């Protein structure tokens, strides 16, 4: 029994944990921007952590549920409502056939994750149901969710304890200003020492161009570059390189002015230098940043990156234990 989409919200897409393995062809891994939140939502409703759910941005959709299911909403503080009654997020909610799931106003964060017991069962493309609209892959016919769509739900429903929720100390929200930990590298040597220092000292703001492909930042000083003869094939601008691969989380600064962090739907390569990469443990946080919020880039080394990664893994393990 499917879910009927009454209103779609804003840029609501079907996402799971993505389709790694095709980045060398320009097809990014995709998947939930806040993977921790997606996994938590699935765990709450008894799904496999990689089941497909909905990622919504700033506002939620309105969904008519046509069978008895468990739903959970995690990520941004976007309170779910069942037939108009506001309920808790990060909690398993029983929904009866015929009820409507909608949302109250966004209080904090940027992306909410909706899991439904059984998972959304649209046809996978290259091993994933994640929506990649540029390449018309996954989702509903390769696109975002629209009003009038009918979303099939899988029949493989696990068993869950009703009303269980994820303890608040295991939920994750960005601080203020948010800190994104960065390992300098890649083409870090292209900027002067003073410019590199400033990049980490100054406070930046999320720009309006902030989506699944990348997040742009404004408000810091333009970068100064180390002089060079442009290498053949790179282009004449000091921020150009011979077109190369872009790591997920890499920070490019076209023209030296506005840094862009590439995210889950990254372009796989191009001709702009990158000065470093956000560590894997902080990638989820980016998806919860609203435009105009302040952020600081914090310089870290590999040791810190690996410890932070272990902390994140431990936190997820604690969630699994808490719900087991």
């Amino acid at each position, binding site marked *: 029994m499917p879910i009927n989409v009454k209103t779609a919200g804003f840029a609501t897409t079907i996402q799971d944990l993505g389709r790694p393995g095709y980045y060398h062809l320009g097809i990014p891994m995709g998947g939930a921007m806040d993977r921790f939140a997606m996994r938590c939502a699935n765990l709450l409703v008894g799904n496999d952590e990689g089941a497909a759910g909905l990622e919504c941005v700033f506002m939620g959709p309105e969904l008519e549920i046509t069978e008895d299911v468990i739903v959970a909403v995690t990520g941004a503080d976007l309170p779910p409502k069942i037939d108009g009654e506001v309920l808790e997020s990060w909690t398993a909610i029983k929904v009866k056939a015929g009820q409507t799931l909608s949302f109250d106003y966004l209080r904090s964060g940027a992306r909410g994750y909706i899991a439904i017991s059984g998972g959304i069962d649209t046809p996978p493309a290259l091993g994933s149901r994640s929506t990649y609209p540029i390449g018309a892959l996954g989702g509903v016919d390769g696109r975002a969710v629209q009003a009038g769509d009918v979303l099939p739900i899988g029949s493989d429903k696990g068993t869950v304890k009703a009303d269980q929720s994820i303890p608040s100390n295991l939920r994750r929200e960005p601080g203020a200003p948010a800190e994104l930990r960065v390992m300098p590298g890649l083409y870090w040597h292209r900027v002067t020492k003073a410019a590199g220092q400033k990049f980490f000292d100054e406070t930046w703001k999320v720009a309006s161009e902030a989506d699944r492909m990348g997040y742009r930042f404004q408000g810091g000083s333009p970068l100064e570059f180390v002089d060079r003869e442009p290498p053949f094939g790179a282009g004449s601008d000091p921020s150009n390189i*011979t077109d190369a691969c872009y790591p997920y*989380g890499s920070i490019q600064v076209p023209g030296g002015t506005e840094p862009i962090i590439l995210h889950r739907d990254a372009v796989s*390569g191009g001709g702009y230098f990158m000065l470093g990469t956000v560590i894997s443990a902080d990638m989820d946080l980016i998806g919860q940043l609203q435009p105009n919020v302040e952020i600081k880039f914090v310089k870290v080394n590999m040791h810190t990156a690996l410890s932070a*990664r272990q902390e994140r893994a431990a936190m997820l393990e604690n969630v699994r234990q808490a719900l087991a």
Partner: protein
Amino acid sequence: MASRFTFGADEHIFVEVSEEMSLEAFFKTLSMTNAVRDANIKGVTEICPANASFQIKFNPDQIHPDDLMAELQRMEETADQAEPVLNTRIVEIPVYYQDPWTHETLMRFRERHQDPNSTDIEYAAEINGFKSVDEFIEAHSGSPWFVSMVGFVSGLPFLYQMVDRDRQIQVPKYLRPRTDTPKLTVGYGGCFSCIYSVRGAGGYQMFGVTPMPIYDPEQKTTYLKDFMVFFKPGDIVKWKPIDREEYDRCLAEVEAGTYEPRIREVVFSLDEFNKNIDETNANLMEALYAD
């Protein structure tokens, strides 16, 4: 040509084989990425070759970044000794230069261009010293091109002109990228040509369109039934200028499922190419058009 190894945080190693583009740098990149693939290293999840650099994505829970770095650095010597010979294919790609669709688009974004009073191809012809656009098209379509990278989005090929460096076309990218580019636009930026596999944003100059799909997520196109992406690094391309009539005919064939691209198997040796570029290219043309 000593490579530069650097971490992209805790999940990527980025290797710049050369700052500048050359076929030598491409072949070394190919040898190194092949070596990494053959080594089947635990924890390596993606191997992405680019023009003159490559990137490895790995799971640091399975291999320590320093250990993987050391292993990759050891492979460089082996790659230096690899013979730059490639069993590959040459493909004819029809191009309708100066088509109405890219023309409409480039007129819409004129204020983002270096020369708002000319078209992209007129500008490219002029700054590369050609007397006319026809002469420029002759140069662009006269020699074969080497696919030295696939990426950006959905199977988009970057192509490198197979001529002496002093004859290579170079054109800067738009001053500010466009928010729109027609699907299957043949573009140009720096020393690279490209084919935009899908509609979308872009900064390369626009010269024309091809009727031949190179990406098909539904895999309905006859020659994309096995896999949705047409190009792979190492493919060789010959542009074939076509007019509107032939464009329409090709398009009708694509839609009817009867279009078959002209593709021939070839062996490419970089050493032979460097010894005699014109002769190597003539042999490639013969292989493509002999039958």
